[in-house]
């Protein structure tokens, strides 16, 4: 083995500059591939970061005003969801995991704690809402079933609200006033979707009762238990027809209710990124092919220059296979070493880019939504390595065949 490397080295030493120049093209190819893949990954991660705070198979239902006359009812009629809609959907729909209605308190109810106060978005939700949007509970708990049943006056706050109202105090168990009504803080959370969002949640039943919401719901949210777009679309159309029947609007009326199917959009985005990744691979491999051709070219010249040496080797007992091996291993060696440097360099640049981005993202979360963690993973490194070895073999193939075909008699008289 050492012998083997010695043979390779001794010939490479002959043409250091040439070996380096040749290797550069390969290193560059791998470097570009890595950079492209990393960027693609970064864009994809950014996209997924956007979906992070939400269950990816969520369906959001908002009401609007009818856009068509239907069954004698004029258009422009406002659709209002109520608890009955919630009950019906819960009863009729199969394949759903979580369902929650929502109501908003908006600016009518400022939150006050001691001398601090602020106007925040306060939403009445059901316990299941934490399975539709995803919150990272920092302290305590989310709204639960007992809160709903007993109309408890409890509240869950996002971290920024806690920071403003409580400063360094522990908010747990403290009472704060919402619209003059005291609520006990039972939990705090980190909001994945927007860490700066100031949001508070109360039990929907309490909200409806205390703030005069009657049985009205602003909108409905559902998380399905299916991961396929088709099934989700199916559920979506079931929802549409159930609500259309209950509220008496045309099923084709797309202004009466609006349904946002997260999975569909998630899959679409994923599809786009899969296409980008494909594209990136194609370009990367094309770049590497340019490198391969370069290596192959140089190796052919090298073999030509070494015709005499190969002839000598053959006359003293080198088998064709050993000559092939000599050329192939040299070619693999050049590509492997050069590619390795390209790999290292590419990884380094990606790492650097990541650090810079993280620094920017400290102050601006938007960056993460566009471009997040642009790293090439282990799988990419392995495939790149395999590509390199294959590249070396391909690059060496023609030169090796030429070398093996050298006839010692001709080579030895080739002065």
């Amino acid at each position: 083995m050492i012998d083997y490397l010695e043979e390779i080295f001794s010939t490479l030493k002959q043409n250091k500059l040439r070996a380096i120049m040749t290797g550069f093209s390969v290193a560059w190819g791998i470097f570009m591939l890595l950079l492209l893949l990393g960027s693609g990954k970064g864009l994809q991660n950014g996209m997924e970061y956007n979906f992070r705070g939400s269950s990816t198979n969520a369906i959001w239902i908002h009401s609007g005003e009818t856009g068509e006359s239907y069954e004698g009812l004029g258009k422009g009629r406002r659709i209002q969801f109520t608890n009955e809609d919630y009950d019906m959907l819960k009863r009729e729909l199969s394949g759903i995991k979580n369902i929650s209605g929502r109501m908003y308190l908006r600016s009518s109810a400022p939150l006050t704690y001691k001398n601090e106060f602020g106007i925040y978005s306060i939403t009445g939700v059901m316990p299941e809402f934490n399975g539709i949007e995803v919150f990272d509970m920092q302290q305590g708990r989310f709204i639960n079933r007992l809160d709903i049943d007993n109309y408890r006056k409890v509240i869950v706050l996002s971290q920024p609200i806690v920071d403003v109202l409580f400063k360094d105090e522990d908010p747990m168990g403290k009472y704060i006033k919402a619209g003059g009504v005291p609520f006990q803080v039972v939990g705090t959370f980190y909001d994945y979707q927007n860490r700066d969002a100031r949001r508070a949640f109360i039990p929907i039943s309490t909200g409806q009762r205390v703030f005069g919401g009657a049985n009205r719901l602003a909108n409905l949210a559902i998380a399905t238990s299916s991961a396929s777009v088709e099934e989700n679309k199916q559920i979506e159309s079931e929802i549409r027809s159930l609500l259309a029947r209950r509220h008496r609007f045309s099923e084709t009326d797309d202004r009466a209710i609006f349904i946002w199917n997260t999975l569909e959009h998630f899959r679409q985005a994923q599809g786009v990124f899969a296409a980008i990744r494909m594209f990136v691979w194609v370009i990367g491999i094309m770049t590497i092919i340019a490198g391969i051709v370069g290596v192959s070219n140089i190796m052919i010249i090298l073999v030509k220059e070494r015709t005499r040496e190969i002839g000598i080797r053959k006359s003293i007992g080198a088998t064709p296979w050993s000559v092939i091996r000599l050329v192939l291993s040299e070619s693999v060696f050049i590509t492997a070493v050069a590619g390795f440097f390209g790999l290292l360099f590419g990884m380094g640049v990606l790492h650097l880019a990541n650090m810079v981005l993280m620094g920017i993202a400290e102050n601006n979360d938007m960056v993460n939504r566009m471009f997040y963690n642009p790293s090439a993973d282990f799988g990419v490194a392995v495939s790149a390595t395999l590509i390199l070895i294959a590249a070396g073999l391909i690059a060496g193939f023609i030169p090796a065949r030429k070398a093996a075909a050298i006839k010692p008699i001709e080579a030895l008289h080739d002065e």
Partner: protein
Amino acid sequence: MDNSIIRVETLHKSYVNGSNALHVLKGVDLDIRQGEMVSIMGSSGSGKSTLLNIIGILDNYDAGAYYLDGIKIEKMSETRAARFRNKYIGFVFQSFNLISFKNAMENVALPLYYQKVSRKKRNMIALEYLEKLGLREWAHHLPSELSGGQKQRVAIARSLISKPKVILADEPTGALDSVTSTEVMEILKEVNATGISIIIVTHENEIAAQTQRIIRLRDGIIESNEVNHNFSNEVSAGVLLEQR
């Protein structure tokens, strides 16, 4: 069993070049016994190089037969030919044919590399051979730093290291001055004295005169094949090489 090391029977070889066929060897018969030192002479175009190439299994023949150490050498795969060359034949060339970027020791050791002898061992053996040829202190020099005579001695060491049965020397003194020519011939005689057959292709009468038998080729046939009565097997410098 006869002790012939190389036996060639009605050997024919022609080169086809486009529509022209050049009939180079037209039925050559040859028998070289073990331990013989033979010279093959002939003007250029006489077919002597072709004959040497066939004997060295560097080239195929068209018709006839060739036995090397009793084994019939026929059209064979390059791999097998390479093994035979490695095992039976040592080559010495007019232009030395050393590998320029390897030092003397590495050059000498190369045939053993192809026998998969470990690096340490083959370098040790190579040093022994260089020692025998008086080049011990030149072991780590590159060919470009050696004189013509030294290069040829390295080449002879290389041809000997695999312990061949035959050494084929193609104009071994062609590129050397008369003093070093004599030196090289002395060495070849010493090698011959250890029992290795030597075939020298030359066009110099002085060289041929130092061999036991002189075979003259002309237009692809053997013109004469006579024992050289002036041959003396006395080695002036004493036996440098061990008996095999």
